[in-house]
């Protein structure tokens, strides 16, 4: 995930659009001056940094159902923060509490040091881009974008400038006079974004912003979103159930389940070092092998698994006691597949190919071990399919290094 760090510090040359609106000056941050040096953007590791948003022991109940369960998180300025989780995990409720459409049953929500729990949505310095886009069908694109500015009582000339700027930013200039039903889905998505950005909010909330787009457009739009987020320097909080989307756009990803945050980390750390079986399983494809640990050196453990098989070795920073139950999570792409027994692998197992999922650029092999455990291995299809080395029922060797997997406690 190359975008995880450093992405948010953009060269000043890219940062042009906000000029007219008085309120928008606070988007220009001191740190983003003329220097072109790339500083690592990791405010969450800086104990001095003050979070823009602070959820403090927030609980939200709907009747007997607990949507958000005693949740505490910090979101920093200029972050692109993704709330990721299956449907019903509470991520939308969390976002709606930020927008002001729901009030927490317990706890505090601080925005820039102020408790905003009792502030109604129309008085908050946050704007939201709705999943359905919620464009006003009776207003033109121009009027849609100007809607929030007019409510602010901004001067006419300033509104014109600001709307034009937003239209430029989202490349919608030629559609300004059209009605929402006269433009495509992708354009509507950009109108929704422009409208929610027009008021230069401190915080922009995006509720499944790309859910209605097809895959190709979605990928393009992800980069556009990142680009716009860099240009405006606005803090973005995005709600999504699409882990690829979260990984692509976000500076940090919060994985949620049952109203709780399971892990908050940069996309690479979420992927490489998940803190639980749930996160490992939710993000991407993974093999989970159950076993018991025995320490064999510093940070190095031998894992006894599937009775009778040779133990596996894995490194882990978190200490495990001898005989402790554990899960070894290994990504399929970190498992090598060979016809012959590899000579220098820390872990090697033999099995029979059960299934091959051909995805074009890569193939995923499902290999069944004699014990019945199925391990997935991924290999790039560097040769044409007719010359594929392995096929169904072939006996192959799977191998991986001691550092390939993550050792997780049960």
């Amino acid at each position, binding site marked *: 995930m190359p975008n995880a760090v450093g992405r948010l510090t953009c060269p000043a040359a890219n940062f042009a659009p906000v000029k007219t609106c008085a309120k928008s000056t606070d988007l220009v941050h001191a740190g983003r001056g003329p220097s072109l040096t790339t500083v690592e953007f990791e405010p969450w590791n800086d104990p001095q940094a003050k979070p823009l948003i602070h959820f403090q022991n927030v609980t939200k109940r709907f009747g007997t159902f607990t949507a958000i369960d005693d949740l505490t998180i910090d979101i920093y300025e200029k972050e692109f923060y993704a709330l990721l989780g299956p449907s019903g995990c509470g991520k939308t409720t969390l976002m709606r509490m930020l927008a002001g459409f729901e009030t927490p049953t317990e706890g505090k929500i601080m925005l820039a040091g102020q408790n905003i729990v009792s502030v109604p949505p129309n008085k908050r310095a946050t704007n939201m881009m709705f999943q359905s886009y*919620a464009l*006003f069908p009776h207003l033109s694109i121009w009027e849609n974008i100007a809607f929030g500015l007019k409510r602010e009582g901004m001067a006419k000339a300033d509104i014109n400038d600001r709307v034009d700027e937003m239209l430029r930013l989202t490349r919608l200039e030629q559609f300004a006079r059209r009605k929402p039903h006269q433009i495509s889905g992708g354009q509507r998505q950009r109108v929704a974004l422009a409208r929610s950005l027009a008021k230069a909010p401190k915080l922009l909330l995006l509720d499944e912003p790309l859910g209605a787009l097809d895959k190709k457009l979605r990928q393009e739009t992800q980069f556009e979103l990142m680009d716009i987020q860099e240009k405006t320097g606005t803090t973005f909080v995005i709600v999504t159930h699409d882990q690829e989307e979260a990984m692509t756009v976000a500076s940090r990803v919060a994985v949620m389940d049952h109203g709780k945050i399971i892990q908050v980390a940069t996309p690479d750390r979420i992927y490489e070092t998940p803190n639980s079986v749930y996160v490992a399983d939710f993000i991407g494809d993974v093999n989970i092998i159950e076993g018991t640990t025995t320490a064999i050196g510093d940070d190095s453990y031998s894992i006894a698994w599937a009775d009778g098989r040779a133990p596996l070795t894995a490194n882990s920073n978190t200490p495990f006691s001898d005989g402790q139950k554990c899960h070894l999570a290994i990504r399929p792409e970190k498992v090598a597949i060979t016809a012959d027994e590899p000579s220098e692998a820390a872990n090697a197992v033999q099995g029979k190919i059960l299934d091959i999922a051909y995805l074009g650029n890569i193939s995923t092999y499902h290999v069944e071990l004699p014990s019945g455990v199925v391990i997935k291995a991924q290999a790039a299809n560097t040769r044409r399919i007719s010359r594929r080395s392995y096929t169904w029922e072939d006996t192959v060797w799977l191998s991986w290094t001691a550092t390939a997997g993550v050792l997780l406690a049960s």
Partner: protein
Amino acid sequence: MRRFFLIAPPYAWLLLLFLAPFAIVVKISLSDYALAIPPYVPKFSWDEGIGAYLSQLDFENYIFLTEDDLYWKAYLSSFKIAAISTTLTLLVGYPIAYGMTRVPSEWRPTLMMLVILPFWTSFLIRVYAWMGILSSEGYLNQLLLWIGVIDTPLTILNTNSAVYIGIVYTYLPFMILPIYSALERLDESLIEAAEDLGCSRLTAFWLVTIPLSKTGIIAGCFLVFIPALGEFVIPSLLGGSNTLMIGKVLWEEFFSNRDWPVASAVAVILLLLLVIPIVLFQRNQQKQQEAEQ
């Protein structure tokens, strides 16, 4: 060919039950009054031929309508009564329709039923019931006297107020249903978006809810205004001698005076006056359909 069979029945219906009778009415309106059965001349006969028949037609009756100020006053008064009643119906109907979309969805069919329920009783009986309510010894006055709000009974029956009450009551469902269907389609997130962008509840309602239910409002207003304009039963039963409505004039012309040609002319003018709002209504419907595509 299949297309032809599909559209033939509605056109045949229209031709037989609207255009043909209307042509007859137009023909009578161009004739002269006579003491005969039917009470007008000329009557068409095949012996004299169509030329001789047409040469006897004139616009005398229409000219008469402009000479006697009763008619244009009745038209104007009908417009006024219909417009006021339509406005009142909108003011009563919109909150009801809005309220119906706010309740949990399992309640909606019941409420819808309650709105339609009065239609199960004869319209005439319901208007007579209002006479019982509104008369000076009626239930309304008894109630008000009993509460002590008034000392002497109010005169409501046989005034324009009674006509307004009757029209609002009778045509309320026609106002509620189109507005309800427009409001029900309204996406709740639009209101939230408006609030998110700085609207209070009230401005969001004014800037989003009202414009987006406009088609329903217009449809409802036409559905009330058009029949109210030619209304006859309500003004004659609930209205007084001061209540001047063209429907009543028409009825008197036809049945009391037995002047079919003038009555027909009144009807033709009424229809032409109605064509304007109907065309506007059609356009509104078309626009709505285009917007939905």
